[in-house]
């Protein structure tokens, strides 16, 4: 069934579908399975890097940029087209249907841009946003610190104003995509004497040069896509402070858990794909006839479908212009707990064979071993399940702190 979002959206969908048909380079959809995904905390799907390096993908990226379909939700003056959440969702649906990739700008698009749009000056917007759209600036996040995983407001990284510059010194951790980033958005303490939340600033600093070093953190899965970062007097102009000095907490909060609904109706696709792969595995091992395994498969399928139903409902609410609540926390809690459990179910289905890894250097694993091991991190990074439940209880149910 397709959500009826009115004639305008129906036209938008039709136009978009023909645009994709006309502009997607031949063979782009066959380069790789663009909808498949790397499990955070685990290994990247094979072939994704190669496919992104393919000239057909380069061409596609250019056409999307020209058509303002990169960061389309941003205002036209910064390279987007002010696309609303419903249309972004339709965009994602249609791209998924055609098997072609979105070109997204990672944390620059997801976190930095929204913060800039709300809190930055027009000069800052004009300077920073187009560089994100073009891919010139690639951001990584500098929030968590070794001592403060859940308690963000306790950051100790110092930011010292020196003339028209700010000098950032400290240690950050759990940074993903550090290797590809040339910029980092950091939360640092610029007023040590102010109360916990009031002395912080949100700064965009260069993630290059000798003042910046980072070290990959190897995870139990064998993969290492998180890093810890050492900032030793990194300098940035004061114009790189977003939202003003000592106002960093408010800026950071506007983007954390900011549910835009754009992916609401496509986020289940990767899990659905994964589910059917598990069914094939169960058949391969002859476990699909085991009544207990069947109950587990029914449970998994149910969870995936619930993501779909909830996504459709979220989109309907966005279409109504309703203010998003703590959906972000519910969504994160739902999929991360689901995926953790799915890994256990998968290893239960595989049985003894799951004790054996593929040969090879390092610590290669099967897909299910990867899900099983990486799934442990899903309920921890970017807000543990415990933090998510606190947020849901306090913000959605109004239970006292």
């Amino acid at each position, binding site marked *: *069934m397709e959500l009826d979002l009115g004639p305008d959206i129906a036209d938008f969908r039709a136009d978009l579908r023909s645009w994709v048909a006309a502009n997607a380079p031949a063979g782009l959809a066959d380069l790789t399975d663009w909808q498949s995904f790397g499990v955070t905390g685990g290994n990247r799907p094979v072939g994704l890097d190669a496919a992104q390096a393919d000239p057909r993908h380069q061409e596609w990226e250019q056409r999307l940029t020209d058509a303002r379909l990169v960061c389309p939700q941003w205002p036209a003056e910064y390279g987007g087209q002010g696309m609303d959440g419903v249309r972004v969702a339709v965009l994602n649906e249609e791209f998924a249907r055609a098997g072609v990739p979105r070109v997204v700008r990672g944390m620059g698009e997801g976190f930095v841009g929204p913060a800039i749009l709300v809190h930055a000056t027009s000069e800052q917007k004009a300077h920073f946003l187009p560089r994100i759209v073009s891919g010139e600036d690639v951001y990584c996040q500098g929030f968590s610190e070794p001592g403060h995983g859940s308690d963000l407001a306790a950051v100790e990284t110092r930011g010292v104003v020196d003339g028209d510059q700010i000098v950032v010194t400290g240690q950050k951790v759990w940074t993903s995509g550090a290797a590809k980033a040339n910029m980092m958005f950091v939360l640092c303490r610029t007023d040590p004497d102010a109360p916990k939340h009031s002395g912080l600033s949100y700064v965009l600093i260069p993630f290059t040069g000798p003042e910046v070093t980072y070290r990959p953190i190897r995870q139990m899965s064998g993969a290492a896509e998180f890093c810890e970062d050492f900032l030793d007097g990194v300098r940035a102009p004061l114009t790189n402070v977003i939202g003003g000095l000592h106002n960093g907490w408010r800026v950071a909060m506007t983007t954390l858990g900011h549910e835009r609904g754009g992916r609401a109706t496509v986020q289940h696709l990767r899990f659905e794909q994964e589910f059917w792969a598990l069914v094939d595995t169960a058949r391969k091992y002859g476990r699909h006839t085991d009544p207990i395994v069947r109950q587990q498969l029914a449970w998994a399928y149910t969870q995936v479908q619930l993501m779909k139903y909830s996504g459709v409902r979220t989109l309907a609410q966005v279409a109504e212009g309703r203010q998003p609540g703590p959906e972000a926390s519910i969504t994160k809690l739902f999929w991360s707990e689901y995926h953790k459990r799915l890994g256990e179910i998968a290893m239960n289905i595989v049985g003894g064979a799951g004790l054996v890894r593929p040969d090879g250097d390092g610590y290669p694993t099967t897909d299910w071993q990867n899900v099983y091991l990486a799934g442990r991190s899903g309920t921890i990074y970017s807000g543990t399940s*415990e933090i998510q439940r606190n947020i849901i*209880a306090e913000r959605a149910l109004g239970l006292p702190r």
Partner: protein
Amino acid sequence: MRLAESREQRELRASVRKFLTDKQSLDAVRVLMDTPSGYDAAVWEQASSQLGLPALAIPEQYGGAGFTFVEQAIVLEELGRALYSGPYFASAVLAANAILCCGDEQARQAHLPGIAAGETIATLALGADELTAEDGRLTGRRDLVLEGATASLILVTTDESLFAVAADAPGVTVIPVATLDQTRRLATITFADAPASVIGSAEPLVGVLDRAAVALAAEQLGGAQAALDMAVAYAKTREQFNRPIGTFQTIKHRCADLLLEVESTRSAVQYAAWAVADGSDELPTIAPLVKAYASDTFSHAAAENIQIHGGIGFTWEHDAQLYFKRAHFDQQFLGDPAEHRERLVQRIGI
């Protein structure tokens, strides 16, 4: 498919909720629990004549209001929330859908207008027990017939056919049984060479039961939401160790998990209601899916509600127990969760 509630739908929900709050509070339900029929005929009459609830999803040509299953799901959620104890589910869901799907135009015209008006109270006697039909006469028995003692019209299924039997027909004996959930009524009905008219084949019954599963899930959603609301309200006000118990992290996290489940159930029920309304081919999979999930959610919410309330939670006087018993009934009725999950995997081809 339009998921967001329209203004009309919101008004429908509001009016049904107000009606039930005024006419059948939980105190009233407790009084009805001890009556033989278990429901208030006057309230039923008003629900039918004034609000037109039984007529809601019945096509206009059969005396109905011609709304869709989406509107009926809203009504069912409110009925579940209020633990409504009347024959709505038996008559306006089970029986009405059986007749609608049976394919017998004559039967539709004969029975649906009465059901829509609330004047005919019908039910569907399901079951696997041996029941023989010989030239229009039934012999055998059916257990656990919902509202069997209230219904004047009893629809009976055999492996081949769907029959209509008048409750007062010769050879029909109805024995009400005591229920664990006193807000639901069951009866055992025996047929001894009882006159019955075939009104269709048993073949469409699968679809009827899928609709019934979604309808029951809608009621379960209402019950689960009510239990969660009750628990949260208590956690905010009840103090132990000089602080509201809602400040204790364990209580917080349990309520958060329940909210996730209730919200997921709501999404599934809305989607499923649209699947019914649209005659979508997703119905065969979402029907067992939503029944199993809504059962688990309601059972979980009703149980946690008791635990969070502590001592008063397991007393007879407290309403928490009414939802707990209703959750058990709904979990078992029309098949338990494991049964529906097995059906689900079969239907997705595993």
